[in-house]
């Protein structure tokens, strides 16, 4: 109760001077009243004031930072979800798992390419770190998708995948012959 009162007081301080505040007198008197009362031991009104002061000062930028961290952490938050989806999709190659894997792999790439755009509206000194986290998150997703592709056998990681490109061996010697003619 006391805190709200003090915050109310601080709010009133900010108000323009020409505004009429009818409740303020009572409030003021209340306030004066309260001032007259001795503060409880260990209570330091200035400390509250300072804290409230600073939070008030960064409120909008705090929101922006919070929002931008949400954005930056978004890809990482998707990881467990993707893991679950991948588990559910199974390793068989059919239309739905393929679509899922396709989405899994395309989405992080897309967001990587549109990273600048996504962070355009966001300013602040933490933007580098956010971008870094965002990048890591997307790369993690790509890695997951690639792992999925690998376990589905879609990646050309085996020697058999390159068999079609193996050139036939050049012939060095030429042989002819058979059973002697008579």
């Amino acid at each position: 109760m006391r805190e709200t009162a003090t915050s109310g007081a601080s709010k009133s301080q900010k108000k323009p001077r020409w505004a009429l505040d009818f409740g303020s007198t009572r409030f003021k008197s209340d306030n004066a009243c309260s001032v007259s009362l001795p503060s409880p031991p260990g209570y330091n009104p200035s400390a509250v004031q300072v804290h409230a002061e600073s939070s008030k000062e960064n409120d909008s930028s705090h929101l922006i930072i919070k929002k931008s961290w949400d954005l930056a952490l978004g890809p990482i938050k998707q990881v467990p979800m993707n893991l679950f989806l991948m588990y559910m999709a199974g390793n068989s190659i059919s239309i739905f798992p393929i679509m899922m894997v396709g989405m899994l792999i395309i989405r992080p790439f897309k967001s990587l390419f549109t990273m600048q755009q996504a962070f355009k509206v966001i300013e602040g000194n933490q933007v580098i770190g956010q971008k870094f986290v965002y990048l890591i998150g997307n790369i993690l997703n790509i890695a997951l998708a690639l792992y999925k592709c690998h376990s589905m056998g879609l990646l050309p990681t085996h020697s058999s995948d390159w068999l079609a490109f193996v050139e036939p061996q050049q012939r060095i010697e030429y042989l002819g012959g058979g059973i002697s003619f008579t």
Partner: protein
Amino acid sequence: MESTPGQRQHQQSVQTRLFYRENSQLYGSTAGAEIATRNQHHNIIPALKSSSIVGSGKSELRDESHRSIGFAVLCGPACGSRIVVVGGPLIGLIAGMALTVASGPVSKSSDMCSKGYYILWTLFFLQFFTCVSCLFEDQIGKFDWRQRYIGKIRFAAFDAVSGTRKILVATEQNVLAALHPKSGNILWQQVLEKDESVQHMHVGKELVSVSGGPRVHVRAWDKTNGLLAWEWSLSQQQSARARWAVDKGRLYHVVPLDGQLEVSAFSLESGFDLGSRRLAAPWTAGGAYDCVLVGATVVCVTQHSFYWTSLADGGAFAEVPLASFDLTPAAVPVLSGVGELAFSLRLPGKQTVFLMGDKGPRAIHEASATASLLATPFDSNIMFKLENKPDSSALQVSAVSLNTGVEVDEYSSTLILGSKFSPCTLTAAICIKDECAAVLSGDDHTISFVNIPGQITWTREEALASIISTEIIDLPVSDLDAAIESEFGSKQEDLGVATGIVGMVMRRLTSQVMQIKVLAQTVLGLVQPASSSGPSRASLIRDTFGLHKMIVAVTSAGKAFGIDNLRGELIWQIQLPRFAPLHVGKSPVVPLYVLRTTSHVPFTPLCAILGKDRLTGEGLAVAFEPIKGLVLSSDALGYKVQQVMQLPHPDDEFLRGLVVLDDQLKVHAYPPESKANAIKQAASLYMFTTWPAKGTFAGFSFAHSTKQDLVATKVWELQLPDGPDREVVAVVGKNPTERVNSQGRVLADRSVMYKYINPNLIAIISQVSDSSHKYILNMYLVDGVSGAVVHSATHKRARAPVNVVHSENWLVYSYFNEKMRRTELASFELYEGKSRSNTTAFSSKSNSVRPLVEQQAYIFPSTVDTMKETITEKGITSKHLIMALPNGNILELPWMFVDPRRPTVQTGEMRDEGVIPYTPELPIPPDAIINYNQTVNRVRGIHTAPSGLESTCLVLVYGLDLFYIRVAPSKAFDLLKDDFDHFLIAAVLLGLVIASYVTKKLAARKARNQAWK
């Protein structure tokens, strides 16, 4: 057995581990007992015992650790051969259930057999591999043709008695046939056994043939349809001088014994022995005599006298000295029969015709020694005389009256044959009411029908029944393409124009002016298109898909043919009068090479055949143009050909010459002008040759050739063990034109087993007579360059006939298993391992890889006449085996069925790999018979050639009959089907386009109306 992480050495013995159990209730004899198995790494693991599985209720397969790997229940005949799998892997279960559903309620019981499991698996997998395309009724004869031949005439007779007239013939190829006198078509034919030569033919109420020996078969055939009327047989000793005669319901057999003639008589229809007599004939002692049967009279001649007696009453020989006919022969004259009443006595320079009467022979006519004489049967009393006139390429036919011995002028005629001339003999003649006809048999195996007087009505080219080697050759490109090619393809010097940009522009301009001129002339109708210079030349142009080709066939009759492969028409034929085939063992061979293909337009295409001179026995090489059939040169080589090979690289005139090794081991080039090219390539050339009698193999290198001469140096020699009882049965290399697309095989774990593709590998099969095993068959895989034995295998109690197919990295051969008395196929596959020793080049000299060998054997439910693999242009299409079976079927068997990696225990991995589980017996499914109901008799060889389409392989089967077909082993994946509905698809597309336009307009109008509201 050594084993490294990547490689495994496999067991090297090829003892067949296929066994039968006596369980004839199901399929005669069925499989079971003991089966050699392999794990997924293809090592042979101890045999799988399934002998205990014949229980009541179910049949179970267990592996070593007695885990059940599946069991099958196979109902016996009682429930209509239904198959149910009650256990085993899931798919088997599903398949089993599917089958159960398909076959209705299943009765539990009956016989159980382990084979059911395999059958089921095979069935299950077969549905994936319906590799053989079936044929619709309207496709009969669309992609294939068959031509039936009978061979060179030995005996011929007219049948004028029964309803339709026909010519009845017996041939050198042991075929009895009836020919239609108007067209020459075969009315019916009966093909006797390969070694059952026809010794006598008699046309009476039925056609009677005497064939074979020492067991002689006497058979009567219905003249109208060729059905067997009756048959009996007898044992007779073989003699080249034995004679047969049929007279008044009796069959006489005359055999000379020393100092005597034995005459045996049999009742013709029953074969009842009517006894034999021995007639004293002291003049036969020295062997200087000749005998002939004239009707039922035997007439013999020595240097001094005639002797004759009747077979029927069997009196002693009567004698007439030759001097009484003013004949004084220097040597023993030759007798030949002239119809039923007369015979001719052939002396050097002339021959005399005698009519056989009651009082002995009576000379009636004299003719030249080379004339062919034949008296007509029945009472027409006319004898025809045929004289060959090689100078004017004509045949002179004349007639002589048997009564008077005077020539009858109205029957004489001259037959002009031109380039097709070949000496002919009369084999049958007939006269009915002044109309006469004769059948001529040529030395080149032709059968001609002559109306007398008149001309040849038809000719059958029976030489095609004795084809030795064939080649399928691309047709030339059309003239317009040829002009373009000659613009760019020819050598600079030939055209004599400046090189460089200006020269090229000039050349282009001149050729285009030429093209415009030709076009204008063609449009205006001034000249015929240049392509129609020959009668059939216009159609002989390469098609888009390269399916239209020319078959070049060389026969043992000294004749070569060009055959259009689409319809089987004969385009050209060339006579090779002095040409005789070479021999490998007893079988004739003619090496046939395409020296220059048809794709190098300013230069004529060129083929060459090697043989020997009929007279001198020395080598003879004939070079000819294969599209028009023109002999360009016929060169006596002056040495005996021992071995021959073709140069791998062409010279700057696109000619790939031949390197010939003679019997003195000297080396020659053919044509001689390709010697320089041969010397240039000599360092990489190797040749091997085999002396089968000695069992010796030798390899030669030409690396020591000087700048002037080719020199062969022996680099290796291989002597087969086992002494003189050994016989080299087959020596088979790989097809030099073959290309292998896939360099390895993908395993289930997606790693690669690289193929051991050694182009210099030769397969040698030898047969050894052994005291304890009777016969042993040894197979050696030898590198022909280095002489190293790469692999060997032994089959105990197995023997020839052996047919070998050697291709890519595998080898398949058929042999006869004496122990089990059945034909088996042994299959080998060679792998380098999971890595390659050299990825860019293969050299036999530096290659030290010992290949891993997979091997397996299969039971084949028929004997095999001959086998060949399909070949395609790039080698992408899977390989099939084309097998000719003795019953006249041509089977197309996917190589997958003889894959040595087929596992006995089906694991998931192998299934992923697409390998069919092992079944000991190979199937002969009726839909894999590519010649459907067109029997192809006595096949001697199969030739396969790639077409322009990767999917399609051209197959020519030759033997007594000719059969051509094209096969698509992996189905026609690069070709739209015949019944592809072009019209419907075009209509739908057009409709959609129109519809989209219309709706666009409608939509625009609607939008406009909306805007106005």
